[in-house]
């Protein structure tokens, strides 16, 4: 699009704004009559007309609820600052969102088979789910891991397991997304070393690591080290990858877990963006050029039940990120201003009661994510509140996205809800709310002091409690749970069972590995790694050496724990 066209469009829009201003005066007068009539009429008593986040919704929105002169300044065009309408110019007209479903279970062999099956059916990217021990940096044979190995994801304890996971899967052709945080640097090195063994140079490896430690302290709790060393490690990853693995997305700044832990939409939005700003500040403080690493930052939102509020959250998020990146952090490149996001439907909204209803919930949430302009989407399976999903349930979740993409027509036009008085007003409200929360966090001295004093955790727990109270009081209706219940329900949903054999297989494999590798080399590599940590050097090179020597995940974690200590959660209710 040329600049001339842009200016013409701008002038026309400006005239429109003028006309609206005149209209507004008359509207205000008529509205007071309407409001009087509304007040005099009886209202339903089965709802208090608030969103699931507790936001009060008005019965009617009009131009009086939107900001004056807002179009060019606040909304604009897709792919242009402030990106309210979307991060890319042509959005789903050029490319649909990526339908990415997260999977992993049991041992590396079993998951490798599942991946090959998916790749043979045309999937081009993989999304790895790890088990809890791996997420926490524990080996499968650690006593703490007992009972959890391979249960909620795949168990990866060393480079050997990662080699098995991607056996026969070329890492220069398949992009790998790894949901890993506390030990992100270890798993990243496992992946890089696996690529190396396949003969794939680092600069050709594509993928994403979640690597968002701040939200772990706030919500999901898969942490290892205290915030300062953890942030240092993340900055090491930014710095090293900008030079050696430029195609890799080094962080996915996630609101998902914050929301799932109970936060409101406004808290999810504000805490996540503030975390993003904190990473940016750390990168700048290290001496990195913001335009070098900011384009590799990406986001991850939850898509909850309140349809319009969720759509507004996506839009407000893009606008706030763009404004801060340009105005506060001085980024010059549009790629640095542009917020790209993955989204997942809200696991916490799935009900164990009448589980087939979850298909409808997931569909509406998926629709909200698409109307919000997401770049990729995971739709939950209907049985995920009962166990890990069965293949059948996963297929329905994927088909839900395909129906959205190809049957509903919602992807035909870009940001179709722009200009809705309600949606624009909600977008503005969420932006204002986020700015107010930013100010509150700044008052505490920033995100890290907020974490250490339990500010975030306490706010999130309180929001969770408010929702639970509303649910139990019946003022918040959840179908099948506190209304429209079925007596003597037999849900009839088949459950996927993961047996205990993964734990045994892993223990045996690790014992073999420990006897096979060169113990002296491992000890030396771990000592070098600890030295690098003590001397505040970039940890990537010595970590890669330790990984190549087949030091295990747990051994590496402990070597660094000796230097950095462990994070202890503040208690806040």
């Amino acid at each position, binding site marked *: 699009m040329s600049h001339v066209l842009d200016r013409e469009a701008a002038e026309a829009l400006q005239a429109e704004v003028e006309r609206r201003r005149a209209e507004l005066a008359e509207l205000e007068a008529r509205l007071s009559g309407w409001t009087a009539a509304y007040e005099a009429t009886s209202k339903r008593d089965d709802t208090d007309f608030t969103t699931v986040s507790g936001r009060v919704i008005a019965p009617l929105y009009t131009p009086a609820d939107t900001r004056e002169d807002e179009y060019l300044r606040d909304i604009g065009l897709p792919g242009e600052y402030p990106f309210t309408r979307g991060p890319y110019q042509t959005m789903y007209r050029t490319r649909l969102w990526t339908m990415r479903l997260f999977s992993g279970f049991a041992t590396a062999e079993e998951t490798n088979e599942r991946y090959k099956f998916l790749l043979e059916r045309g999937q081009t990217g993989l999304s790895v789910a790890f088990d809890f021990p791996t997420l926490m940096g524990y080996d499968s044979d650690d006593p703490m891991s007992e009972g959890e190995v391979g249960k909620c994801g795949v168990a990866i304890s060393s480079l050997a397991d990662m080699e098995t996971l991607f056996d026969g899967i070329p890492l220069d052709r398949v992009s790998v997304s790894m949901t890993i945080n506390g030990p992100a640097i270890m798993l990243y090195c496992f992946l890089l070393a696996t690529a190396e063994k396949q003969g794939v140079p680092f600069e050709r490896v594509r993928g994403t690591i979640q690597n968002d430690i701040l939200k772990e302290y706030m919500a999901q709790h898969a942490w290892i080290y*205290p915030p300062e060393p953890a942030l240092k490690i993340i900055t090491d990853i930014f710095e090293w990858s900008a030079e050696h693995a430029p195609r890799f997305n080094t962080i996915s700044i996630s609101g998902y877990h914050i929301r799932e832990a109970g936060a409101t939409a406004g808290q999810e939005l504000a805490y996540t963006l503030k975390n993003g700003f904190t990473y940016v500040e750390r990168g700048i403080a290290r001496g990195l050029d913001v335009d070098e690493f900011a384009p590799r930052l990406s986001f991850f939102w939850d898509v909850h039940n309140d349809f319009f509020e969720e759509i507004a959250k996506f839009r407000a998020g893009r606008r706030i990120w763009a404004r801060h990146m340009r105005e506060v952090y001085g980024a010059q490149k549009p790629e640095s201003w542009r917020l790209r996001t993955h989204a997942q439907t809200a696991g916490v909204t799935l009900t164990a009661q009448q589980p087939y209803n979850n298909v409808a919930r997931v569909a509406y949430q998926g629709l909200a994510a698409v109307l919000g302009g997401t770049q990729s989407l995971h739709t939950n399976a209907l049985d995920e509140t009962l166990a890990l999903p069965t293949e059948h349930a996963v297929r329905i979740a994927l088909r839900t996205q395909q129906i959205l993409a190809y049957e509903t027509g919602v992807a035909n036009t870009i940001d179709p809800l722009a200009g809705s008085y309600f949606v624009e007003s909600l977008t503005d409200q969420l932006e204002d709310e986020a700015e107010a929360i930013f100010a509150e966090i700044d008052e505490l001295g920033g995100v890290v002091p907020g974490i250490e*004093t339990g500010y975030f955790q306490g706010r999130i727990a309180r929001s969770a409690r408010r929702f639970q109270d509303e649910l139990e009081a019946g003022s918040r209706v959840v179908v099948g749970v506190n209304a429209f219940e079925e007596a003597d329900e037999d849900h009839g949903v088949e459950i996927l069972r993961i047996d205990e054999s993964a734990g045994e297989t892993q223990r045996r494999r690790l014992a073999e590995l420990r006897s096979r590798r060169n113990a002296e080399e491992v000890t030396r590599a771990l000592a070098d790694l600890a030295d690098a940590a003590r001397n505040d050097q970039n940890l990537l090179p010595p970590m890669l050496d330790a990984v190549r020597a087949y030091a295990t995940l747990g051994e590496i974690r402990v070597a660094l724990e000796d230097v950095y*200590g462990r994070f*202890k*959660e503040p*208690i806040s*209710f």
Partner: protein
Amino acid sequence: MNESALASLSPKQKGLIERFQSGQPLALSRVISHVENHRPGFESMLEALHGAVGRARRIGITGPPGAGKSTLTAALARWYRERDLTVGIIAVDPSSPFTGGALLGDRVRMDDLATEPGIFIRSMASRGSHGGLAASTRETADLLDAFGFDRILLETVGVGQSELEVASSTDSTLVVLVPESGDGIQAMKAGLMEVADLFAVNKADRPGADRLKREIEIVLALRSGKPGRPAAGHHGVDLSSLRAGREDPPQEERAGVADDAWEVPVIPCVASRSEGVEEVAETLEEHFRWLEASGRLADGRRAQAREHARLVLERAMGRQAMQAWESWLATEGADRELESRSPYAISRTVLSEVWPDAPTAEY
């Protein structure tokens, strides 16, 4: 072992005391509950075990919320364990004034001590009672003492008078502050100056730690009236009469130690990294040696015993008076009397049930 107290116990309670004496932690735990809940026979149980009380050193740890008391408590406990000393910990948290419930979360900071042999941690809710909390914590400490722990750490949030009282009913009181908790003047306002034998400035790697240390030292110096040489030993505060180091020794005992006042040290530390913990622990040991050498330990323990006996008496009197009150309330005509007579007259009537010879003198 007090035989008459033991004789008044039920067979089940006797069995519990026997298991306590043979060193079973579950028995200790259950006797504590018995005492904390004032279940029938609890005073006889305490009396039966009283002979074994008095060996442990008791250390109060207090300070504002978020100062890192639990972290420091855990670090001190580890220091003692490295020296083969056993440690009993009492962690007090407030009860909700509305529901009477409580969320006791101090153990999170002491997580790695849960299975450590030689360490026993007990969380207590303040249960909102004034003298009650002081008596319950003291008696729980007595039980830990009788069970054989070498050191007893009593951790409370230093926010209210009763919490301060609890912390200062020990041999030594450690007050923990952090740069964020304000300046020395605020510490003085909160009453922390009166109770401290030792200050720890925790999170000393944060900005403002040096300033806080200096401010506390200045306030201490002002209080002692000896600028530049902060020292303990002030007068006129009720709390001081309960405590070991605070009370001026009788004239004759003072002779040899006249110039030997305890200077309250202010020690920076980072409890989460165990930095400075050694100095805090060693200073606590030093304080105890000073208490012993100066004769203040015996004085302090006597003052503690006096206060404890007073609390037990008050509790016993209260219990009897309340029983009489309940039966008076149940009598016919109580309602009418409440309307027609003054509360003072009613009180005299009830009291004469408990204590027929009660003097009728007015107050």
